[in-house]
């Protein structure tokens, strides 16, 4: 089952895409591990490893990088929010 990964704001622009369907490899069980897995693709994906204060959400709830993920989840990465 695919995991939908979304990107927003400057991260979306740097990656040139707002979403990516990913088949989670064995052993990728947290948001941080998924971040590292994607960043290891090289440019432009390495921006995921270098973005300061990268934020994440799983199934539309803000979480830390240690949060667990499973196939079928909706995972999002984004910079710190600046609304209001």
């Amino acid at each position, binding site marked *: 089952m695919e995991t939908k990964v*979304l990107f*927003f*704001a*400057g991260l*979306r622009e740097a990656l040139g895409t707002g979403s990516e369907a990913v088949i989670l490899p064995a052993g990728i069980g947290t948001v941080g591990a998924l971040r590292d897995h994607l960043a290891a693709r090289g440019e432009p994906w390495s921006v995921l490893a270098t973005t300061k*204060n990268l934020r994440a*959400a799983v199934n*539309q*709830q*803000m979480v830390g990088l240690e949060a667990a993920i499973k196939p079928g989840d909706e995972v*999002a990465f*984004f*910079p*710190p*929010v*600046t*609304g*209001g």
Partner: protein
Amino acid sequence: MSVSVQEADFDAGAEIAALSAGRDDVGAVASFVGLVRADKQAEKVGVGETAAVQAMTLEHYPGMTEKALDAIVAEARGRWDFFGARVIHRVGKLLPGDRIVFVAVASAHRGDAFAACEFIMDYLKTRAPFWKKEETPDGGRWVDARESDDQAAGRWQSPQK
């Protein structure tokens, strides 16, 4: 409906009136309106280097943004006594002077209304997934998160009541 994310402008007066319409137990409505400021970029690059903001584009995370705003209002309800709250945040392209965000809280007494309104606004700034991109004569740039916003939200973490 207490939370809206929309491109359209809003009528603050009508929203405030709606919070007490048809009831006689509301003693206070506190409200906040945020506007797009033209001098934001100038503030960051320093006096004399004015690169005025010509427009701003608001991006959000459809679905999560509404849930996050609902959760913030629910958290406020757990801390203060109020009858109703209204949150409107605009998205898309906005110009200096445009209204961007509205928060209002109706309660029996002003203390709850003032505090809940400020709390909702502070939490919105740090927890609701919106991102601002400014257009200036030097090009577009994503607005950086401000530490002062984290501090403003953080002060609500100590017991309030």
